[in-house]
């Protein structure tokens, strides 16, 4: 029997091969057949979760809520480093200098990333902007979100900080950051589903010691992390409680 591993689609495309390398290492280390399935978008990944096709996942914080509270997944680690923050940007020549300058009718470009979109919507509240008085333009990728702003199709765009920083300096030169989130608490987590609960201790030890070898460090670096950090179930429950206040 093979187990299914997936990664939240929010990571940059250039890391696809690095996740396959990580999966090969995980399989060999655990002597366990694990199939990595990467989904193009959050909708497809959520459908796979609903269909019970996910056993291991590096999950975005919003999906973690569903997986932990409703699907019995256990959190075992999270990448060490700053939390997942996002930015709201406009074109550099936009008259808006900050969020309060935005007006009803604002056109916003975003992907289907639930984490970025929820925090972004909260950061628009000081301008009294919501889904009822803004126009949302969904794009497949963050490059397309940037293009929508530069072409004047959208007034603002939502980006994860990492995706924004990955834009070329030429693109960033023509874009102004209106606000950067500083939630301090929202972060991706590595979750293991009920079918593998008997391997949780082994998997936790494997991840938490991964940085101790040259090969492990190099794989982590390729994935944008320096090491995995221990996470207690209560840490994730706390994060889920926080997220629940943002989605109501």
């Amino acid at each position, binding site marked *: 029997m093979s187990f299914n591993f997936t990664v939240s689609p929010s990571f940059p495309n250039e890391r696809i091969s690095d996740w396959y390398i990580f999966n090969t290492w995980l399989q060999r280390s655990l002597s366990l057949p694990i199939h990595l399935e990467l989904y193009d978008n959050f909708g497809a990944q959520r459908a796979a979760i609903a269909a019970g096709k996910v056993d291991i996942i590096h999950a975005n914080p919003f999906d973690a809520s569903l997986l932990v509270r409703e699907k019995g997944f256990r959190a075992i680690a999270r990448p060490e480093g700053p939390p997942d923050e996002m930015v709201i940007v406009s074109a550099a020549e936009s008259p808006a200098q900050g*969020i*309060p300058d935005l007006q009803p009718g604002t056109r916003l470009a975003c992907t289907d990333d639930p984490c970025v979109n929820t925090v972004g919507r909260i950061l628009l509240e000081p301008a*009294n902007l919501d889904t009822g008085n803004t126009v949302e333009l969904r794009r497949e990728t963050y490059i397309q979100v940037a293009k929508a702003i530069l072409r004047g199709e959208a007034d603002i765009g939502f980006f994860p900080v990492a995706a924004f920083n990955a834009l070329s300096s030429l693109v960033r030169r023509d874009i102004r950051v209106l606000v950067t989130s*500083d939630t*301090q608490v929202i972060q991706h987590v590595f979750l293991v589903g009920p079918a593998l609960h008997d391997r949780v201790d082994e998997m936790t030890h494997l991840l938490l010691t991964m940085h101790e070898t040259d090969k492990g460090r190099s794989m982590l670096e390729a994935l944008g992390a320096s090491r995995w950090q221990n996470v207690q179930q209560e840490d994730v*429950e706390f994060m889920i*409680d926080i997220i629940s206040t943002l989605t109501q």
Partner: protein
Amino acid sequence: MNLDHISGDPVEHVLTHADGTRRRVYVTSIEKPYPHGKLIVSRTDTAGIITQCNQSFVDMSGYAREELIGQPHSLLRHPGMPAAAFRDLWDTVKAGHQWHGYVKNLRKDGGHYWVHAAVVPNIRNGEIVGYTSVRREPSREHVAAAELQYREMNGQ
């Protein structure tokens, strides 16, 4: 509150809490603007005693972290907030539901800051083990409306 920590021209108030205890506070008209992009997060036990808070909570309150942990959350209660608002908050979260509202918080220096607050009960194994409060930046229109409503509720 200690007058030595107050900046500006303070007015003295005596607050009566739900448990009947009274507390003298000093209030100025100085508002500290909400920091853009931040969430202010804190956690209490079931009795409302602060057990955990993030750096934004510390920064906005004006207290040191050590002065906050172990203290009742009502440390931040501003006399402009009607007691009925907090009664509604506690009734809601004790019943296992989320509470949302606009709150004027009192700083250590007598100033204040407005937040859009949400309080959620921490339910573990079917039991409420504490409460988490998450505050975000409110719009000025909502602050103005809340201020008016609270004045009316306070009979001012």
